[in-house]
């Protein structure tokens, strides 16, 4: 039988959508539609280099490779391999589809319990209380009640369906202003999870001003992960992280942190630094928090703001910050090549995602596996939307408002963000933080265009760290993956 095929012009090859980079003496391609990283041999590199100049037909490409000293069958194999992984594509190929949406009934994995919206500090840049706040807490509960907390725990266990383990993060305001409730919830949640045969983990974020020996012992005994919001040595910390009377908080937290780090040995203790204009001494801050204070990990993020605040990072501030990030990234790589863990978590987090090869439909788990709960029991996409009437996604007693949640997720999907479609960093970034976008542009579905260049440069840096490790110390990556799977 004869099957006629449509006769058309021969397909012409071009590069697939990728970010090519060199590291550790090897060449690599990061394939955007998959999130995959492949190391290339000289032959594969030469094909990409040729196609960079102009598109070529199959015959032309084979001829060029044969001329370059490869056998014809080797050339055919090479082209086949590159085509199969979509390192090269033809002009007749349909564009690869974007990541599909997670199922509408995505099981819940984590809740962030905002156990109080009250705080004993008055940090000038705070997204919850500062000039760009979106929370509308007037007339709402200030402290979560134990009933609301228990209902939340039950809700989480129920909505997690087949998941084997869930996680609860305690958040504020200042979380430890409601420590009494926290303690009760941990004990309740442990029993409730055990009754359902599920594992459960806990963590909290605190400004560390209210840590006591008793609290530290409880956190350690119950294996509760601790993140301390902190900006660095005294001059840096006291610039924005102040009490309501303007007094800095460094002197209060320093002895408490030393006790916390000396006595809490069951979980990693992390510092989370907010970078603002004039506070960009990243390396000095890192040294202080890691070496002097003794945090296990330190992570940095530029302050979230509408763009008009005097503490906002300008372009030069971002450049300064990035230059110092690079310095620490180099150090991270040097440690890793020696087989040692480094505490700069901005690199660690990205390396974890590169190891997996994530290709995100959404920038984070907000509204998917994770929800925030306000003191009054209102559900929100995450802790950053707590108490914001604009983003309530239901109530702990009545469940998730699926319509609003669906709208939030549709809006935040990477395929809905026009500018992201031509960006190679989208598998990891997916447009960036929903909350940051809302504060900046008034729309959670807006790509965070103010930091695109920064994200691309940083992703490139982390890819090079990853590539160098894969070439020079692949065993470290394997151990790193195992360690991350445990934490």
């Amino acid at each position: 039988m004869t099957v006629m095929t449509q006769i058309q012009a021969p397909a012409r090859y071009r590069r697939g959508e990728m970010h090519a980079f060199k590291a550790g003496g090897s060449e690599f391609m990061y394939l955007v539609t998959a999130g995959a990283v492949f190391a290339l041999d000289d032959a594969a590199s030469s094909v990409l280099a040729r196609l960079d100049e102009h598109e070529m037909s199959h015959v032309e490409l084979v001829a060029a490779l044969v001329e370059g000293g490869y056998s014809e069958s080797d050339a055919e194999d090479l082209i086949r391999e590159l085509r199969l992984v979509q390192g090269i594509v033809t002009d007749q190929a349909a564009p690869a589809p974007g990541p599909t949406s997670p199922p509408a009934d995505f099981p819940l994995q984590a809740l962030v319990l905002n156990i109080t919206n009250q705080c004993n500090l008055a940090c000038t840049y705070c997204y919850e209380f500062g000039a760009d706040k979106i929370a509308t807490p007037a007339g709402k509960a200030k402290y979560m009640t134990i009933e609301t907390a228990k209902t939340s725990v039950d809700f989480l266990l129920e909505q997690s369906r087949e998941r084997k383990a869930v996680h609860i993060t305690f958040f504020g305001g200042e979380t430890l202003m409601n420590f009494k409730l926290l303690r009760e919830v941990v004990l309740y949640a442990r029993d409730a999870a055990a009754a359902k045969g599920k594992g459960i983990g806990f963590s909290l974020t605190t400004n560390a001003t209210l840590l006591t020996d008793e609290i530290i012992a409880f956190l350690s005994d119950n294996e509760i992960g601790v993140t301390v919001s902190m900006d660095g040595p005294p001059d840096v910390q006291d610039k924005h992280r102040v009490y309501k009377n303007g007094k800095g908080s460094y002197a209060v937290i320093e002895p408490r942190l030393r006790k916390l780090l000396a006595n809490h040995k069951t979980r990693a203790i992390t510092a989370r630094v907010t970078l603002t204009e004039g506070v960009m001494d990243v390396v000095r801050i890192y040294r202080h928090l890691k070496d002097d204070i003794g945090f296990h990990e330190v992570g940095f993020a530029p302050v979230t703001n509408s763009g008009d605040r005097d503490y906002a990072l300008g372009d030069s501030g971002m450049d300064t910050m990035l230059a110092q990030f690079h310095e620490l990234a180099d150090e991270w790589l040097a440690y890793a090549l020696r087989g040692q863990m480094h505490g700069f978590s901005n690199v660690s987090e990205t390396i974890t995602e590169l190891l997996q090869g994530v290709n995100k439909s959404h920038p984070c788990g907000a509204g998917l596996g994770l929800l925030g709960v306000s003191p009054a029991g209102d559900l929100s996409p995450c802790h950053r939307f707590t108490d914001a009437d604009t983003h309530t996604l239901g109530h702990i007693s009545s469940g998730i408002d699926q319509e609003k949640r669906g709208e939030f997720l549709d809006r935040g999907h990477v395929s809905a963000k026009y500018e992201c479609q031509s960006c190679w960093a989208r598998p990891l970034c997916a447009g960036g933080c929903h909350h940051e976008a809302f504060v900046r542009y008034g729309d959670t579905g807006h790509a965070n265009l103010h930091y695109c260049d920064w994200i691309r440069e940083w992703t490139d840096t982390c890819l090079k760290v990853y590539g160098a490790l894969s070439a020079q110390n692949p065993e470290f990556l394997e151990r790193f993956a195992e360690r991350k799977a445990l934490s």
Partner: protein
Amino acid sequence: MKHLRPVNRKAQRIEESIVAAQPSTEEDVVALQQAPRPHVPMGCSLSFSPGWEVDGGGGTAGLCQPAERDIYDCYVTCFWPVQVPDHVNYSPDWASNCAVAAKDWRNLDLVFP
């Protein structure tokens, strides 16, 4: 794969899927002159009808049936019903002047309804 080395989990999964899919993509469709030579069973059957196929040398001379035999597939089996006359209803005698296709195919004429 020889020229590409997967270095993250996603790349490994892609490689695995390629390896797993190889029998179907490699052996489904082969050109007769491709090296190594594919196994071609002896004897003729419809599935080895000529037409757009070529023989091991890239021509049509060595095919197990003459290339012109192909037109009967379109005619007799109604496989390609539009381009040839319908021998069931309207043109039962269309091929009566063509006893040996390789020799007589020029006798096949157009049909004027």
